[in-house]
């Protein structure tokens, strides 16, 4: 088997604790992530699941190097990108893309859709950036009529399609999707998931899909990482982890999902946190 696209070894991140310690001098540090090790295989989809405060978004931001880890290392296609400066990262930026949770805040409200998608292409010296941007709009089934609109004129689902178009337009090898459906209605969510599956298959993408919803991850991912309080409590092939979770936290997460089926027992025997 070929070597993985992304290798993460002993990754850690700590930040100064803004709520504690003296106003001047060194603050105590908060450990957000601790000792994370995993691989993301080429053209694989990894699901990262956890509840609020688990560090899943922080981990995602380390993977695309929006944050600099304070321990361990991240190899992308064999290159150590753990501590690369912005100028060194430029060469890798086209390969490492991200779709954000809130498309309203991740799309600059003052730019048109066309500019939002074509801008990054121009930045990387791509010829005919605007044509390529229109093609990307087609790929996400939005249509070229949207090119001249502004983000606030779009619905939530349409905005998220723009977010995806912007990421795929650069022709990346890796895309990080951070809770990209959590603000959407279920019917819109289903459409976005279908689109994502289509793009992953057609464009041979490697995808990391961050979500609080195990059901979504079960559908999209090949492998899963379960995070709790900044540590991996369980990881493995998706079917294995679902069929026989080894960690009680994974089992609790699974049991807490209200499936749309009648089940009187689900609300009985209240267990305490």
């Amino acid at each position: 088997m070929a070597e993985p696209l992304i290798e993460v070894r002993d990754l850690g991140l700590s930040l100064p604790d803004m709520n504690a310690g003296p106003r001047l001098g060194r603050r105590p540090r908060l450990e957000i992530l601790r000792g994370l090790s995993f691989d993301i295989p080429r053209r694989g989809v990894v699901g990262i699941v956890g509840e609020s405060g688990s560090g899943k978004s922080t981990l995602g931001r380390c993977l695309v190097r929006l944050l600099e880890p304070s321990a361990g290392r991240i190899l992308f296609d064999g290159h150590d990108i753990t501590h690369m400066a912005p100028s060194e990262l430029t060469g890798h930026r086209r390969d490492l893309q991200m779709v954000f949770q809130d498309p309203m805040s991740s799309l600059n409200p003052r730019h048109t859709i066309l500019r939002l998608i074509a801008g990054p292409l121009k930045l990387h010296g791509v010829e005919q950036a605007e044509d390529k941007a229109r093609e990307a709009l087609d790929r996400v089934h939005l249509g070229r009529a949207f090119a001249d609109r502004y983000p606030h004129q779009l619905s939530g689902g349409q905005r998220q399609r723009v977010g995806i178009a912007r990421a795929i337009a650069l022709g990346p090898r890796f895309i990080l999707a951070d809770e990209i459906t959590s603000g959407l209605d279920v019917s819109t969510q289903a459409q976005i998931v279908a689109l994502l599956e289509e793009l992953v298959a057609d464009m041979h993408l490697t995808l990391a899909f961050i979500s609080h919803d195990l059901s979504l991850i079960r559908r999209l991912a090949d492998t899963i990482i379960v995070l709790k309080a900044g540590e991996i409590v369980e990881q493995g092939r998706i079917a294995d982890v679902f069929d026989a979770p080894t960690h009680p936290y994974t089992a609790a997460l699974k049991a807490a999902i209200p499936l749309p089926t009648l089940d009187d027992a689900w609300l009985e025997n209240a267990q305490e946190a």
Partner: protein
Amino acid sequence: MTGILEIDSLSVRIGPRGPRILQDVSLSVAPGEIHGLIGESGAGKSMIGKTVAGLLPRGLNVSEGSVRFDGKELTALPRRRLRKLVGERIAIIPQDPLTALNPSRRIAGQITDRLVHTLGWDRRRALLRAEETLNEVSIRNPAQTLRSYPHELSGGMRQRVLIAAAFAAAPDFIIADEPTTALDVTVQRQILQLIRAMQARHGTAMLFVTHDMGVVAKLCTRATVLYAGKVVETGTAEHLFGPNPHPYTEALIGATPRYDRPEDSLRPVPERVIEALRAEQEATHG
């Protein structure tokens, strides 16, 4: 069957002649049942609860229809009488436990306000009841919690406090407006379990607004499905999750993600279902 809440052909408009955000809505909540209101954003599900509670935002008005609570017509009541009736008999569990509590006041005052100011209890008795109710919602140290400020409690604890505040005055009816949407799934399950247990113990009828078909399945006795401000259907949980629900209901269930059958879930709502639904609504509501 006479429900404790009977809504009949209710329409709510923006301004006197503006568009209708609720149109021809009829539903009935039986005593002791949890009645789900489900729909996607813009379906008008929160507006129904707001109409009942007299909390419609400025500019929105009931233009047609009636809302009867325990036999009394609410739409005909002057605003002050409505407020008084709601204060005495109807409680609300809000969506966001963070903004629903005043950050600069202790929990005690926020639970006893209604008891003291609306129901005219003396403070001592109100505090005792508050402590009792916190006990009921499984808060371990009620006395200490009463002295706390909201920011000292976790999200799940705050939602428990709000549930306690709703049940403290022994209301006849509770409107829960997406009370678990902001919570993690494991906390959501505990809160739903708690709401179910409290509701069963007190026999309180409840209108439960949600966008999650899974929550309806687990919690509700009956539910009303809404689309674009109009009722699609009302049915028992057995009907809605049985073999023959309305095609739109079936599509909403089909769009819900399910880990137990990943390939047979997350189905986008088919175009034709929406078109047929629109035609149907056009025909019945004009």
